């Protein structure tokens, strides 16, 4: 057992943190949130040159063969200044799914250019009725000879408004199946949707969109299991991002308590506010600690332990992480509720992370239904 980052990981975390601070301060996110794309392809390319997108993928596809820990560290540190490039959507959701489900030719065609920063990916898995159930796909994939036609609608596709390639789940005769579809293909209709946290997603309608058989990832019916695993990676990634958000909000709040004066003194000298800040610190450290467990477990194939720690981590984000976000606003007072102050931007991002990849009730139910939960010592 070892709870320390190795030297390379420490270096990576530091480099990403410095990049965020120096090259993408929150002001950059503010500027870009009203633009059509919401981020800059040039910045994405630079992140590709730095090698960050290849971190969790094998060397055979142009990756670095690292662990998910490295990936989570990048996400955690990009979050400190709300860097808007779609790392989670493209690398974790799109990339990890493609890496697991695709063959060598598909990896070379879609994964390698993403790793290099030339393209982005999006995962179109969610539907209006599905609510965290990745096996609930009403979008259909109807065989036409060796090819397919897709029909149906996907909702809240993160980075779906700009991704070069979409990975789409659809019900084929053999069950839920994944396909790679160019966003600009015929029959693919993309509606851009703004999200509460200043990002963009897409509602995507497939109207008999033609997909050739070579774009199918794996066998028919293999999609749900792959997506289930992707959701664990995504939940662990959201928690890592939540750690970056909570840590930053706590620091901003402690700084504010140390500068803001009322009644002739720094408000941080009031015991009621000090104790609130300490409880925020406690919740943040609980989140950081269980995030460490979940990023390690994400790569493990043992289902029970992996799910237990990832669900516990997402639950701590939903409870402790959200509470830190709430208290940060409360302790900043009225200024926090203006769009001018940055604290509210972090607040909204925490709520977005909470809503994605399984909410509190989903993870409580999943944790409690694992056979290990009911094992009672005799």
């Amino acid at each position: 057992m070892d709870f320390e980052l190795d030297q390379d990981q420490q270096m990576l975390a530091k480099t990403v943190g410095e990049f965020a601070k120096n090259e993408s301060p929150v002001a950059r996110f503010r500027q870009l949130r009203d633009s059509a794309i919401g981020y800059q392809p040039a910045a994405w390319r630079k992140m590709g040159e730095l090698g960050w997108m290849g971190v969790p993928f094998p060397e055979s596809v142009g990756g670095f063969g690292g662990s998910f820990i490295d990936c989570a560290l990048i996400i955690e540190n990009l979050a400190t200044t709300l860097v808007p490039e779609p790392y989670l959507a493209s690398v974790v959701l799109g990339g990890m799914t493609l890496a697991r489900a695709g063959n060598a030719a598909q990896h070379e065609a879609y994964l390698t250019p993403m790793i290099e920063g030339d393209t982005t990916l999006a995962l179109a898995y969610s539907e209006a009725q599905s609510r965290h159930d990745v096996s609930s796909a009403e979008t259909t994939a109807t065989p036409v000879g060796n090819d397919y036609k897709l029909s149906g609608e996907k909702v809240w596709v993160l980075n779906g408004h700009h991704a070069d390639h979409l990975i789409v789940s659809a019900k084929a005769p053999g069950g839920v199946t994944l396909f790679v579809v160019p966003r600009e293909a015929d029959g693919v209709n993309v509606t851009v949707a703004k999200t509460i946290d200043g990002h963009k997603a897409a509602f995507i309608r497939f109207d008999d969109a033609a997909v050739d058989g070579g774009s199918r990832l794996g066998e028919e019916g293999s999609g749900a299991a792959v997506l289930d695993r992707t959701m664990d990676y995504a939940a662990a990634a959201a928690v890592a991002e939540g750690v970056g958000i909570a840590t930053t909000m706590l620091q901003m709040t402690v700084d504010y308590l140390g500068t803001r004066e009322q009644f002739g003194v720094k408000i941080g000298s009031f015991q009621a506010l000090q104790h609130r800040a300490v409880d925020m610190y406690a919740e943040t450290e609980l989140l950081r600690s269980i995030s460490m467990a979940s990023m390690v477990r994400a790569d493990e194939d043992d289902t029970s332990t992996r799910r237990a720690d990832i669900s516990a981590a997402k639950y701590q984000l939903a409870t402790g992480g959200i509470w830190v976000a709430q208290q940060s606003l409360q302790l900043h007072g009225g200024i926090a509720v203006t769009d001018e102050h940055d604290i509210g931007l972090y607040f909204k991002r925490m709520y977005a992370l909470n809503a994605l990849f399984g909410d509190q009730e989903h993870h409580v139910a999943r944790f409690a239904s694992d056979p290990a939960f009911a094992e009672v010592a005799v």
Partner: protein
Amino acid sequence: MDLTFTDEEEAFRQEVRAWIPEAMPDEMREKARGAGGFTPEDSATWHRILYEKGWVAPHWPKEVGGTGWDAARRFIFNEEMELAGAPPLSVFGLSMVGPLIISFGTDAQKKRFLPKILSAEEFWCQGYSEPGSGSDLASLRTTAEDAGDHFIVNGQKTWTSFAQYADWVFCLVRTDQSVKKQAGITFLLIDLKSPGVEVKPMLTLGHTPAFCDTFFDNVKVPKENVVGGINQGWTMAKALLGHERTLLAMIGPSQNVLQKVKRIAASKSVNGRPMLEDPVWRAKIARLEMRFRAHTMVSYRALADQQKGKMPGPESSILKVVGTKLIQELTELAMEVMGESSLTWYNEGLCPPVEESIGPYFCYERAATIYGGSNEIQRNVIAKMILQLPSS
């Protein structure tokens, strides 16, 4: 980062798991399987069994009688002890004054005291609080007057838990009235058999015999019983607090109560099925278990730091605040799961032994957020020392 155990560590786990039930006397094994409810005598018996095996002080260095285990083996050992429901050991010698003597004691003190802590020939208790000095501990008034080669101690200590079973007490006493209150305190070891010492036990809210008042009336204490130097007592108290942190995280007791909650929930029905299968009750239990998992990870980080010879990181400061609240919530949940059976109060044979033990324990654990520096004092300290918020 790596959270897995090696094959050698897994083999060690099997060794410990197999040894525990073999080593326990029959009656103790019955209690361990059932409700617990161990007496101080049970704890002493188990202490001696562990001593014979050489396993009584996993956290002490090898040269003074510890096991020399690394952090992973200590995690495993503690986990197996809890899962087996083994009696808790008295912490005052093994986990409090022992480590302090190891760090700050003279060679003579090490030779005199450590072997008898290990062998259970001498048990210890703590003399910190006084009737007028609780959270404001540094205001303490028990005095130790300089009388040449010894001190004369006068005053009253309270919450000297288990003093009625102890042979020695480690005390904070005032040795200088003329300086700032923290600067005039000395850490002193006092033999409870000394003339002039009187111990008066009182029942806890759970009707267990834990609390005591201890009175000192012109008690003669040799100067060689000072640890860390005269007027260095406050520094010693703070050093001891570092040892206490991981202890007060309550990982073991929480694990134990969580198991009990599940056992009770599996044995009771609601809506025609075991409570443990009812979605509402299951979710209630799961929420606390998930929080416990996060809390355990904070504690592992602190233990891993200690293992590497580093001071635990600042995050270890929250262990007491979070862990004591969690054990209270778990005992409350146990009461809730029991329903009407939670009314029971020492009725042997009326309820299953596990349930019979919960009420007194639930009552006693109300102390957890108060002792060891109340959680409010802990927050004051964290606000100042870690968050560096301004003083009022």
